[in-house]
Each structure stands twice: as structure tokens, then as C-alpha cells.
């Protein structure tokens, strides 16, 4: 263990996972997660009030579990990092309140950090420190963003993001219209393996020449979602059975084609040789395959952490906190609020 580095406790509560982790340097000591996903699945999405209550109940047990598994006493913690945004206001408030209480009780510095940047930072725990400049594609139920990372602790530029639906959200909505359970992503991925991704040429949002000037690195999946809905309706109206596997595979192909094409183009433009993909949607098998293929062709080093670090977790926040502390960034004030739509260029508050 690099004992010279500070021990950072990270707390993540932006959505439905209560995550607590301990990181020293780039080494993960423990990552404990409690999820309220099962409670939300029957509603077809996250219920903010249910999530807030679940975080409240899980917070202290999850902290205790993390400390116990790592055999660390709270007094050994050097800094507290917590997600300050973006995310759901209620859940974020539970996490920041717990973090402030710990910071005050332990008399240790508090760092409010950005959830989306955390999705990129967690890769350092798996694949080692970032080179000077990396591209990060963060794709999940709530986010589809392309970040140019010159310094994960201090210098992140948002090159583009979704103008309407996030990638994972489009999967949930298409899942809904195909009659699949929530969340749609894993179900569509499973069905897509049996389908033909070239069966239906669904539209690629914001890839037309006219969109290059203003939206070269932005994403739009709303038109694609509408096209899938209307294609399925036309199929139903003509009395044909909907070829669900082909629709799933072709829809996913359209999403993944745009994500990877724009990301590789951004890497070329900014002379970046390392790409990190994070966020829950990076579990998608078609995304992993196409990103691997296109990065290999373009000579780009692709880093995708294991799936358990791509979904929301405490490790990503502890990892970013660790980077921020080591970079000498000033701690947050103890009166920080939460920001549900925090700018992605804001690493710390």
C-alpha cells in the first residue's frame, strides 16, 4: 500500500445505489453498495421518494460494512468525498448530509465531486493513472457525455452531450414499447444477440452534414426512439409479428454506431490516444464490441472498467476524491448544496 497517500472515503447517492468505498492513491481498499433497484423495477423507473428513503436506511449500514471489510477505523480516514451532482435532489441530499456529518465529526476535509467525472475517474483504480490527455465517454440511464480530460482533478472539458434522451434512457423507452421489463437495457442487449443488427436501417441522430457545425459531438436519440416506435406500429398494423430480436439489435446498432463514431472522431480531432468508457450503459455488449473494433482500427487504447465499476458505486467517487486531494484542490465548504444538473466541467464544488 502506498501509505503516503491520503485515505479517502467516497459516498455516492445520486440515483438508486448507495455506494461507499475507501481508496488510497489509486488503490481500492473496499467498495460496498446497497441498491434499491428491485423496489423501483415494479414502477418502471426510479421513484425519487423511494430512493431517498432507501439511501437513508442504507447509509450507515453501508459505511459500517465498508469499514468492517477493509478493517479500517473511521479515525484513519483522511478525507471525505461525496457526489454533489448531477443526479436526483433527494438522494444527493442524503449523501451530502452524511458526508458533512462525517467531515464535521472527524474534523476532516470534505470534497463535493461530480458524479459523471467519477465514472471516468474510477478507471484509474483498474487500469492505472491516466496519460496526460484522455477522452471519456460516459453513457448511462441519465447521461451521454463526451469529456476531454486533461486532468481528472482540475481540467475537464465537455465536448458534447445528449440534446434529448440519454442512451440508457432510449433503451428503457424502446424496452417499454417492445413490452420488456424495466430497465430495458439488459433485456434489449440479451434479445439483440439473437437478432440481425443490419436488419433495419434506423436513423443515426445528428450525423448529417448540416449537424456537423453545431452538434459534431452532441447526441440525439429521441428521433431514433420515435422511428423505432413507428416501425413497430407499422409492423403491428400490417398484421405481422414484430421481429423483436431484429428490432433490438438494429436499434442498439444505431445507438452504438453514433456513440463510437463521434467519440473516435473527437479523439482524432484532439489528438487523444486513450479512450475511457464508463457509466452503466457501457455494459452493453454491442457497444463494447464496436468500440473495441473501431479503437483498434484507429490505434486508440480503449479502457473500459469491469461492469461493477461502470454502474454507480462508491469507488468512482473515492477515486475522484483521491485524485482531487492529491492535486491539492481546496476542500469544499461545509455548507455546499447539491446540484441536480451540475455542469460536467465542474469537477469539485
Amino acid at each position, binding site marked *: 500500500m502506498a501509505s503516503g497517500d491520503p485515505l479517502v472515503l467516497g459516498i455516492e447517492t445520486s440515483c438508486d445505489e448507495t455506494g461507499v468505498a475507501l481508496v488510497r492513491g489509486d488503490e481500492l481498499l473496499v467498495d460496498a453498495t446497497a441498491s434499491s433497484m428491485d423496489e423501483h423495477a415494479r414502477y418502471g*423507473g426510479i421513484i425519487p421518494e423511494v430512493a431517498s428513503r432507501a439511501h437513508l436506511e442504507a447509509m450507515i449500514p453501508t459505511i459500517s460494512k465498508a469499514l468492517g471489510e477493509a478493517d479500517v477505523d473511521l479515525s484513519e480516514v483522511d478525507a471525505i468525498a461525496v457526489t454533489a451532482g448531477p443526479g436526483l435532489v433527494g438522494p444527493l441530499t442524503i449523501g451530502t448530509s452524511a458526508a458533512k456529518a462525517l467531515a464535521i465529526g472527524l474534523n476532516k476535509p470534505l470534497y463535493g465531486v461530480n458524479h459523471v467525472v467519477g465514472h471516468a475517474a474510477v478507471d484509474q483504480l483498474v487500469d492505472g493513472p491516466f496519460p496526460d490527455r484522455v477522452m471519456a465517454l460516459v453513457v448511462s440511464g441519465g447521461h451521454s457525455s463526451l469529456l476531454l480530460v486533461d486532468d481528472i482533478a482540475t481540467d475537464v472539458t465537455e465536448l458534447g452531450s445528449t440534446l434529448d434522451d440519454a442512451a440508457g434512457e432510449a433503451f428503457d423507452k424502446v424496452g417499454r414499447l417492445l413490452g420488456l421489463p424495466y430497465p430495458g437495457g439488459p433485456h434489449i442487449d440479451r434479445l439483440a444477440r439473437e437478432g440481425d443488427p443490419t436488419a433495419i436501417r434506423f436513423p443515426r441522430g445528428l450525423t448529417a452534414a448540416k449537424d456537423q457545425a453545431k452538434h459534431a459531438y452532441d447526441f440525439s436519440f429521441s428521433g431514433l426512439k420515435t422511428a423505432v416506435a413507428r416501425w413497430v406500429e407499422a409492423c403491428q398494423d400490417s398484421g405481422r409479428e414484430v421481429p423483436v430480436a431484429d428490432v433490438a439489435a438494429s436499434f442498439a446498432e444505431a445507438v452504438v454506431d453514433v456513440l463510437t463514431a463521434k467519440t473516435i472522431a473527437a479523439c482524432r480531432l484532439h489528438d487523444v490516444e486513450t479512450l475511457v468508457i464508463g457509466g452503466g450503459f457501457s455494459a452493453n455488449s454491442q457497444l463494447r464490441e464496436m468500440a473495441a473494433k473501431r479503437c483498434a482500427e484507429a490505434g486508440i487504447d480503449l479502457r473500459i472498467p469491469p461492469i461493477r465499476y461502470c454502474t454507480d458505486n462508491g469507488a468512482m467517487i473515492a477515486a475522484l476524491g483521491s485524485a482531487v486531494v492529491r492535486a491539492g484542490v481546496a476542500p469544499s465548504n461545509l455548507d455546499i448544496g447539491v446540484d441536480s444538473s451540475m455542469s460536467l466541467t465542474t469537477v469539485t464544488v
Partner: protein
Amino acid sequence: MNDVTTARVELPDAATTKALGAALARELRAGDLVILTGDLGAGKTTFTQGLGAALGVRGQVASPTFIVAREHPPLPREDGTTGPGLVHVDAYRLGGLDELEALDLDSSLEDSVTVVEWGRGLAETLTEDRLEIDLVRPRGLTDEQGSDGVPVEGTDQDPAGLEDAETGVRHATLRGLGARWAGVDLQAIVVAART
């Protein structure tokens, strides 16, 4: 009060859907509630993008589905004043609009224009003054695309008109309820959207 005013308008493309949002924005003031109804892909978020741009608010107006409610504070106008902000809500998973208060929004609904997607049946608990807008998109691949409506597989061409699926003609029906909307000329708003 049971005053109801209505207007209907055809929206040939996404730009006109945004123009309707923009035309309405000029009529809106702090405290107003707009309820949007329509299937997936009907243009609810597109409409709200036009409304937000004309209102002059900060941040990208995108789907609020994931975070349930997204707040857009007002930007200062050229004359230094500020108008109302925008609170953009996806009520699909809310039990009632009174749950909006439990979301701990920074901006109060009294100081903002609130646009609620999937809010029909939930708004009544909040206020009887509201503008309801129904957005209807074409079903299937028929009409404007010139297709016979039968999906085509196994081709790289676009005979089914999928590239245009988003830009098919929508129809909007505006319905103003309560004292706030009594006497408001909704017809003038839809005419403004088309010119």
C-alpha cells in the same frame, strides 16, 4: 370557474413544434402550469426546447425522465430584467403533482413556468388553472413518408422513410382551464407559431 378556451394547430415539422413552444412562451408568466400529453416521440421535449429558448433560460432542455424534474433558471434579458425560470417535469413516475414539493426543487413553482410531461390526471390536485396541450404524432410509417406503411428489413436503403420519422406532421390541441386562461387568445398563439 370552468372557462375553457381551445385551439388546434398542425405542426408539419420539429421546427414548427419548437415555434409553438416559443409562441406560447411569450404569453407565459411565473406560476403558470403547462401539461403536455402525447405518446413516445410525439414531440413533448421538442416543444419544451422551443419554449425554454424563447423564455430565455439556462441549460440544455432535454428529456427530464431520468432526474424527474430539471430546473432551468432564467437568464438576464438585454434590458437587465429577468423573466420566469423553467421547471421541466416528467411525471410518469410521480403519484401526484403534489409530490413535486417532495423533490426539494431550488426554484419555487410560483416563480417559474412549470411544464409537466405525462401529467394528465395529476395536475388537478395542484391547481385548476392550467394549459393542457395534447400532441399527436402519426402512427406507423404511413402518410407523409409516402411509404405503404409496411416495414422493410434487410436493406441499407430507407424506403420506409425512417430518417423522416421524427419530422412527420404532428397535431397539437391547446386547452386553457381556469380563470388564468379565460379570455386568452390561444388561436393567436397557434397562428404566431405558423408564421
